[in-house]
């Protein structure tokens, strides 16, 4: 089972690397979905099957579909891809990259010193998660529902403004042309 963990971890890292380096946004989106699926496998191997199911349903299912819809609405061309290519010039990020690699080496050294603790055995089932969610974390659930309501109202408001502005501009152009 451990080879599953390491293989899915390698896939997650490789696909995430592709997400931040590829210039086509739709390709990056597909890589990101694969990365989320790999992380879901990691959750499953770690003994969290409920988290794995939520990862696939909400992240790879709902949120990524939002991204796909927006990408299809925008319909970016080759000019944007060429502009993104210019931002990935190696001369810009070599110095900070070397410093960040040094920090990563420090982190790996710290873990090699004292982080070698084997962990427990049993998987945490959905029942335990539900009991914890509606027991001590009930206030958090209410706050999450408020946050989702605020997100809904905010997205609806922004979309409403967009329609108003667009029609307003079209009316102005119509008056200018006429």
């Amino acid at each position: 089972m451990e080879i599953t963990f390491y293989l899915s971890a390698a896939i997650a890292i490789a696909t995430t690397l592709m997400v931040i380096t590829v210039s086509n946004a739709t390709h990056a989106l597909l890589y990101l979905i694969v990365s989320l699926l790999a992380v879901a496998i990691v959750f499953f191997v770690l003994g969290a099957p409920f988290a794995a199911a939520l990862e696939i349903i909400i992240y790879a299912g709902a949120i990524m579909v939002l991204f796909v819809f927006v990408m299809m609405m925008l319909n970016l061309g080759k000019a944007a891809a060429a502009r993104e290519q210019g931002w990935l010039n190696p001369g810009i990020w070599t110095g900070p990259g070397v410093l960040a690699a040094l920090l990563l080496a420090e982190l790996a050294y710290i873990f090699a010193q004292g982080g070698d603790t084997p962990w427990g055995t049993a998987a945490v089932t959905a029942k335990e998660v539900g009991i914890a969610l509606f027991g001590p974390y009930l206030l958090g659930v209410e706050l999450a529902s408020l946050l989702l309501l605020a997100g809904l109202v905010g997205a609806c408001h922004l979309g409403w403004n967009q329609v108003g502005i667009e029609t307003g501009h079209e009316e102005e152009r119509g008056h200018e042309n006429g």
Partner: protein
Amino acid sequence: MRTAEAIAAIPMHHGLVLAAILFALGMIGILARRNLVFILMSIEIMLNAAGLAFVVAGARWEQADGQVMLIFILAVAAAEVSVGLALLLLLYRRFQTLDADAVSKMRG
């Protein structure tokens, strides 16, 4: 299918290192890219890495709290991405570009 020895064979810091790598990749994406779609995707990667760290810690101590925190992170990510994508669409309709530097001036 999943035996106790198999889970015990994976040390905790391997999961945490994976979460750290994913978080760092997301942060590199935010710093390197100027397309707003890629910036939003990098934010998703970072939130996902934080949730992975919570789940790893929850699996280490066999508590459900890690997965509860992952559910909260999912709610935050859903709210964030809905508002972010609505802003992105508004921006694209107004400026005809997705470059984050194009909107760096206020009242320009």
